[in-house]
């Protein structure tokens, strides 16, 4: 695992990917973006919507990256080759959101959180769940500098605490307070239907929402 992140690869250029790429670039990271197709198809979009971000083939973007953000539709995840991400720190920004996106058989079980299922499939990677719970349209406006009283929080859940801390630093640099959750299982609170999904909250509001939900369940 990298001790710190300099280069980020964003996989997926739908609603969410370009927003994450832009925020990472603003925070001073080197950022590449890729889809399942040729980078040529992304050139114009990258140039206009995220100038400074490099469109690459997925394999090249991932190979050069210290951290890979997965922001593809979850129902496309089963088509992604796990070998592509072997040995990488992977941030799972995807959501299993059946009422909005349809059901996906791989994720239908209730026992595991969606990121645990992602981790099982990406067995050669270290998966951290983050950047999934604030709506893409609120992500950029929600950023605040370190020390702001109204700074908002983003959950970071992982089984590997070193890797989670590395991601936590990225979240902090992007402009959010990382709220650390000590396992992918605990990251369930970040999922659709959980107490903080779709909400833009300060750290204390975030922690209170999680606590209240835990007491009620």
């Amino acid at each position, binding site marked *: 695992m990298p001790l710190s992140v300099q280069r980020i690869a964003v996989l997926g*250029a739908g609603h969410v990917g370009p927003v994450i790429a832009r925020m990472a670039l603003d925070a001073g990271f080197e950022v590449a973006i890729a889809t399942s197709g040729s980078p040529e198809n992304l050139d114009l979009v990258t140039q*206009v919507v995220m100038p400074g971000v490099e469109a690459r083939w997925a394999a090249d973007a991932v190979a050069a990256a210290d951290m890979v953000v997965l922001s593809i539709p979850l129902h496309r995840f089963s088509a992604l080759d796990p070998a592509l991400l072997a040995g990488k720190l992977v941030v799972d920004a995807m959501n299993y959101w059946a*009422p*909005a996106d*349809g059901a996906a058989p791989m994720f239908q079980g209730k026992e595991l959180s969606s990121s645990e299922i992602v981790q099982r499939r990406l067995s050669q990677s270290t998966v951290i769940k983050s950047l999934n719970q604030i*709506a893409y349209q609120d992500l*950029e406006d929600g950023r605040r500098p370190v020390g702001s009283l109204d700074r908002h929080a983003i959950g970071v859940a992982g089984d590997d605490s070193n890797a989670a801390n590395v991601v936590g630093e990225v979240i902090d640099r992007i402009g959010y307070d990382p709220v650390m959750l000590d396992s992918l299982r605990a990251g369930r609170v970040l999922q*659709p239907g959980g107490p903080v999904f*779709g909400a*833009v909250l300060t750290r204390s509001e975030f922690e209170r929402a999680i606590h209240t939900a835990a007491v009620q369940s």
Partner: protein
Amino acid sequence: MTTSTAETPRETAGGSTRFPLVLGLDTFGDHEHDAEDRPLSHAQTIRNVVEEGVLAEQVGVDFFGIGEHHTDDFPMPAADVVLAAIAARTKRIHVGSAVTVLSSDDPVRVFQRFSTLNAISNGRAEVVLGRGSSIDSFPLFGYDLANYEELFEEKVNLFAELLKGGPVTWHGNLRPSLNNQDVVPYTEAGPFRTWIGVGGSPQSVVRAAHYGFSLMLAIIGGSPARFRPFSRLFLQALEKFGREPLPIGVHSPGHVAETDEKALEEFWPRWLHIITKMSKVRGFAIPTLESFRYEVGPQGALFIGSPETVAQKIAANLMTLGANRFDLKFGMPGLSPDSLMRNIELYGTKVIPRVRELLAESTRPDD
């Protein structure tokens, strides 16, 4: 673009636009309540929407759009039938969808219905293709939301072929092929205007440009200004595909009343109710009064208040986005017919002239 040449080109922050300013209204057929807050029948709500469209023309609104929905809160699955009733009672106002959920419909039928509407209205029909935030049509017609992208891509492709006129030959994976098939009614004066509604995916913007469809930015949450790169992307993509510039529109929800206080008071409980209901189904957090106020403010996507407040916000956002059209999605389930008719009247008689004035001021050469 014969309709645009008479208009003076207008410079905006987003670039030059050669299209006339269009100010419209959209509804989703929001289920109306009477003055005692009792739900009206679906049938009465639909009849009221016809009256709303007729009033919109009388007070000077340019476009009346109806968005397809399939729920008790929005009982409006056959928007084109209602649009036809409005077209038969009006002369000038353009009528169209906002949006047509093409992925769960048949492009041939959509073309036929809107080509028929275009005939009834003497060329005033428009269609906005998209998903909307409505997902109810998918289980209803036996489609899987997981195929949404493929369905939309393929059906937009067929729709573009149909608009060209003449016998159609087309092959796809998700709909039976067409072999030299005549599709009627023919349009009288070329294809009716077709838009693609885009919510936040830049690749959808490029797709609209690829097919030569106009761009409708659906801005329903967060800062409208963040869509500014999309206008640039659209114009550059059109250029790349060797096409002439096309109109850019904005669709956002709102409510107009005599004062800011009255508008907020009428809208907030209805908004809270419907978003809370959606939150439960879709599993996201319930909005707070604070998050609502943020959306109503200058950084947000809700256009709620007095005519002056709403006009200022529309003008500012059209400038920022380099757009030439704004469609206010009015109404909310539970609002009364009186409140909606007042909204339409104020929008036509106060908001529209004020937006025109503000944009004319901002583009005066001696400024």
